[in-house]
């Protein structure tokens, strides 16, 4: 191991291996033993466990911090939490969020939690990078990222999600749907 290279270049790891440049022996030149060895390896793979997940039927467990499509949250009385403050839109690095604010009218107290609400709330899912900064920016816990992902559509228009697509089911009328949509992700 005392060749000239040692003086010039220091080995970075101890895993280096000298290349064997010796001419092939007769057995090696026959190739058949090594071919049989290779075939034994492939044959042994028949009995290996397949890591495949049959996707639409079977789903992989997500990590608790997985960031999927957005959900607009409601409080336990079914009122929308969003006040259209626009902090999420400001925080969004992809500029995917737009909204229009409106004032709550008398008699709408059961629909909106505070005096101001988002009349229009749109997220362009093609622009969104699912960074979760909107979730972090929101002071009202009104938006969070769910485990739903891979939306599919035939038109670009279909990827602009409005309030119909984003709002969580009402806990008063559809408690099960609300629970499912939150999926233990909302920590208030």
């Amino acid at each position, binding site marked *: 191991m005392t060749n000239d290279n040692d003086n010039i270049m220091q080995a970075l790891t101890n895993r280096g291996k000298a290349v064997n440049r010796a001419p092939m022996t007769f057995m090696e030149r026959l190739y058949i033993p090594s*071919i049989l060895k*290779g*075939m034994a390896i*492939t*044959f042994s*793979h*028949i009995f290996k466990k397949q890591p*495949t997940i049959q996707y639409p039927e079977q789903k992989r467990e997500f990590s608790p911090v997985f960031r999927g499509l957005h959900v607009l949250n409601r409080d336990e009385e079914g009122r929308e939490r969003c006040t259209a403050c626009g902090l999420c839109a400001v925080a969004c690095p992809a500029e995917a969020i737009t909204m229009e604010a409106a004032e709550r009218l008398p008699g709408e107290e059961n629909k909106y939690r505070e005096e101001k609400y988002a009349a229009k709330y749109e997220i362009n899912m093609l622009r969104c990078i699912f960074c979760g900064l909107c979730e972090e920016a929101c002071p009202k816990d009104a938006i969070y990222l769910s485990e739903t992902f891979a939306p599919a559509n035939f038109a670009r228009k279909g990827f602009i999600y409005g309030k119909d697509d984003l709002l969580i089911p009402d806990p008063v009328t559809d408690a099960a749907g609300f629970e499912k949509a939150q999926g233990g992700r909302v920590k208030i």
Partner: protein
Amino acid sequence: MTTILAFDWILLLEKLILIAIIVFASLGIALYTTFAERKVAAVLQDRPGPNRAGPFGLFQPFADGLKLIMKEEIIPNTANKVLFVLGPGLAMTAALMTCAVIPWSTSVEFFGRKIDLQIADINIGILYIFGVVSLGVYGIMIGGWASNNKFSLMAALRGASQAISYELAMGLSLIAVLMISGSLSLKAIVEQQQAAGNLWNIVYQPLGFIIFFICALAECNRTPFDLPEAENELNFGYHQEYSSMKLGFYLFSEYINMIMSSAVMACLFFGGYDIPFFDESTLSPNIAALLGFLALFTKIIIFIFVFMWIRWTIPRFRYDQLMNLGWKRLIPLALFNMLLTGAFILWKQG
């Protein structure tokens, strides 16, 4: 007039039915061989393979066939139209013609007639197979040339030179088998292996079998000898300009070739329809024929599996390596094997 009437018309009908059954059965088996190839590849690579179309994906080959038929048929502007269409047809015909002399089993008895489960027991059976297999090269050659595409032409040239080089070694390794059996008829070769006191030819000709097997891989254009289809060097190979079912014919003929060469290997070296360690003559002829066919079929399936197993294990040969192996290794080895067999036969005769 009397000579025409005296002709055994029922024999003609019998043979026609047998031809129809064998041709359609080999097409059906080839269909499922494509499916098996995908499944074997998948299993060897820790994947489940196609499993969506029907139970266990069993309808997949039909879906594939439908897809190929429904696709747009493109004939390039500058291609030679007649030859372009002839190419895949010839490849398919040559592949199917091989099945004429293969003895699928002994004979069955129906309505007092003895029906041989072999389309034609000609006394030059194995020569016929060699001739037809050589014709198969024309399918590749014509297709590649008529496409008027340099990659296709290169692939076709490779295919032709490969087939010629390996046919030589194949023929020489076969001569040793013929020296033992003393007949060119496949049926006679099988019956000779089946006879009491005789072992399968693989016992007498292990070296010959290895040479024959390697050459069969090359003749079928299977990996590691699939140089006519070397995608990374030739885009796609000799069938690059083909689309729709014409492409399907080329791909299909490869699988039929595989089945037929498996059948020939089973007949020449592994006793054909002989059931190992079992005397069929104690059974009634119909059951013996059925069991014999199943035995041959099992042998064919095992061979096809080995073909696939090799394909998904070994990388492709380089062109000069291919030629070196064919001319400098296999042919001398086959000649040596022939010499050895001859010497052995002479020594036994004393």
